[in-house]
């Protein structure tokens, strides 16, 4: 069972893509069966290109793409057992809801009675029963979104690709759809490859997150790993908010930054190696000036609902801190954090 669950369904080996410039550089990645994998990164990082290569809409300049162990570099999209939910849905405006969803089955020449039943099931799955004869243009963004998902899922693909499917929805609807999508993925048991630039969305839904930047993979891991153990400054900065400080690793478990030396839990760096130190804003505690490891002055306090966001100036560095308590602007405070909260990352020179 274990072996079956971890079967690789898609594998990218050294995939590169060149337009006038290189947009993907030697991407190595695999997707397990039934996994919810998210490609996360800022716009232009190559995540959509990666998705389009998997879907077959672009071909890689270099490298190989495998589907269930078979090379599918040259297989056209209509022969791949992969379906896509497009960014702006790409529903057919000349067909009604029923015919849009039935499109894939009509092409496979499935009998009308089966089509009717399947479409009804799909509409039920996406909570739009009774919408069969509606015109696409009469639907809201969220409804069009669901129709696009139904149109893809009815083909029972082995992999569903989703290209920023929630991008056009408002915040509240987006949150609802995130949960709904995740539930849908569990229900139908299909592998999802999801593209987004929204780190919160990625952390909420995914089993595995792939962080990309400048056409290269920065880190692959579970949401918890990515958040707690970012591999480099880019990941730390992109996932959640971080304070990134230059420092020097004196020896194992000992690091110097902002003019002081701290105990930490990291090892394996060479002596006096220049590194980045990442401190999450929520890991820092504000104490009285005399009790703090670092001293500074509060320069801004903003109320954010659940917490306050403060900036404390420590000489040359502005430290971002999140806390449910707040200190008034101008107050001199001390900052504390425990050794586990100090994340060390190699600094690329």
């Amino acid at each position, binding site marked *: 069972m274990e072996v079956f669950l971890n079967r690789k369904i898609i594998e990218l080996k050294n995939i590169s893509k060149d337009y006038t410039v290189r947009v993907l550089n030697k991407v190595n990645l695999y997707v397990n069966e039934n996994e919810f994998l998210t490609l996360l990164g800022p716009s232009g990082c190559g995540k959509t290109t990666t998705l389009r290569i998997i879907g077959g809409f672009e071909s890689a300049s270099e490298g190989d793409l495998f589907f269930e162990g078979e090379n599918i570099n040259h297989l056209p999209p209509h022969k791949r057992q992969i379906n896509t939910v497009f960014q*702006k849905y790409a529903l057919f405006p000349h067909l009604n809801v029923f015919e849009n969803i039935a499109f894939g089955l009509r*092409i496979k020449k499935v009998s009308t009675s089966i089509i009717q039943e399947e479409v009804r099931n799909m509409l039920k799955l996406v909570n739009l029963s009774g919408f069969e004869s509606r015109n696409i243009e009469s639907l809201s963004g969220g409804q069009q979104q669901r129709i696009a998902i139904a149109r893809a899922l009815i083909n029972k693909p082995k992999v569903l690709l989703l290209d920023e499917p929630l991008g056009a929805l408002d915040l509240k609807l987006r949150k609802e759809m995130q949960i709904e999508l995740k539930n849908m993925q569990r229900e139908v048991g299909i592998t999802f490859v999801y593209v987004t630039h929204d780190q919160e969305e990625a952390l909420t839904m995914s089993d595995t997150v792939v962080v990309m930047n400048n056409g290269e993979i920065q880190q692959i891991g579970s949401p918890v790993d990515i958040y707690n153990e970012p591999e480099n400054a880019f990941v730390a900065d992109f996932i959640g908010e971080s304070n990134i400080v230059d420092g020097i690793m004196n020896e194992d478990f000992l690091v110097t930054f902002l003019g002081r030396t701290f105990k930490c839990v990291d090892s394996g760096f060479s002596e006096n190696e220049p590194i980045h130190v990442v401190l999450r804003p929520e890991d820092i505690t504000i104490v009285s000036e005399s009790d703090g490891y670092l001293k500074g002055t509060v320069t801004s306090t903003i109320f954010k609902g659940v917490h306050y966001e403060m900036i404390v100036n420590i000489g040359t560095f502005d430290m971002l801190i999140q806390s449910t308590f707040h200190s008034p602007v101008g107050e001199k405070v001390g900052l504390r954090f425990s050794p586990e909260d100090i994340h060390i990352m190699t600094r690329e020179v």
Partner: protein
Amino acid sequence: MNKRQKFFAYPYGLWMTLFILLPILLVFLYSITSKDTNQIKTLRFTLDNYRKFFDPLYINVIIRSINLALISTFFCLVIGYPVAYIISTTNLKKRNTVLLLFILPMWMNMLLRTYAWMTILGNNGLINSFLNMLGLPSFRLLYNNTAIVIGMVYNFLPFMVLPIYTVLSKMDMKLVEASHDLGADHKTTFLRVIFPLSLPGVISGIIMVFMPAVSSFVIPRLLGGNRSLYIGTLIENLFLVTGDWHFGSSVAIIMMLIILASMSILNRFDVDKEGGAGLW
């Protein structure tokens, strides 16, 4: 709409009245009065001009004209659609050049273009000279229906290509990708997505070709000779040769009604009301 905006509409309204409404009314007036009255005081109203038209001779003219216009429109569509499709899929740099080549002949007068075909198809024309050179006998290519259809297709093809091209080039390529994604190969994608979505352009094209084709008199006159009459040449004859403006006007009005009727039929197919058929 405020007063100022209304004011700017006056010249347009004046133009419409003077150059569109008034002439049509005059033609209509001619069509319902009899020939022997030339003074406004002694106008005699009659439907004789219309009655006269329902003679098998003239009915045949109508049928022949519509028939020829339909054939020309059909060939324009069959040739024009692939051309429009090819232009819309060539890359942007080449596209404008190809398009320009297509529109270039339109910069020349239609009469000249039609004369050019006379020299190509004539008894001593380009094609026959070439055949003679090979020792083959000449064919009579000019002054028949084929020559008229060739002339019409040549002259009106851009009117078919342009609206189809416009619709195709504006089409969301994501829809084509979506179709491929859902398992459709190129042929199925064309039949189920691209062609249905380009229908507004096709309908515009059909209207833009059919209308001038059914009423054209230059092309039948030059390439079809004097042997058979078409609506256009009939009206021309009645006005310029016979001098029967009253009967000529009634034929003109009948032609307008025929075009109006065919437009409203086409209009039913144009669901989105995006094509030119929406004008009616």
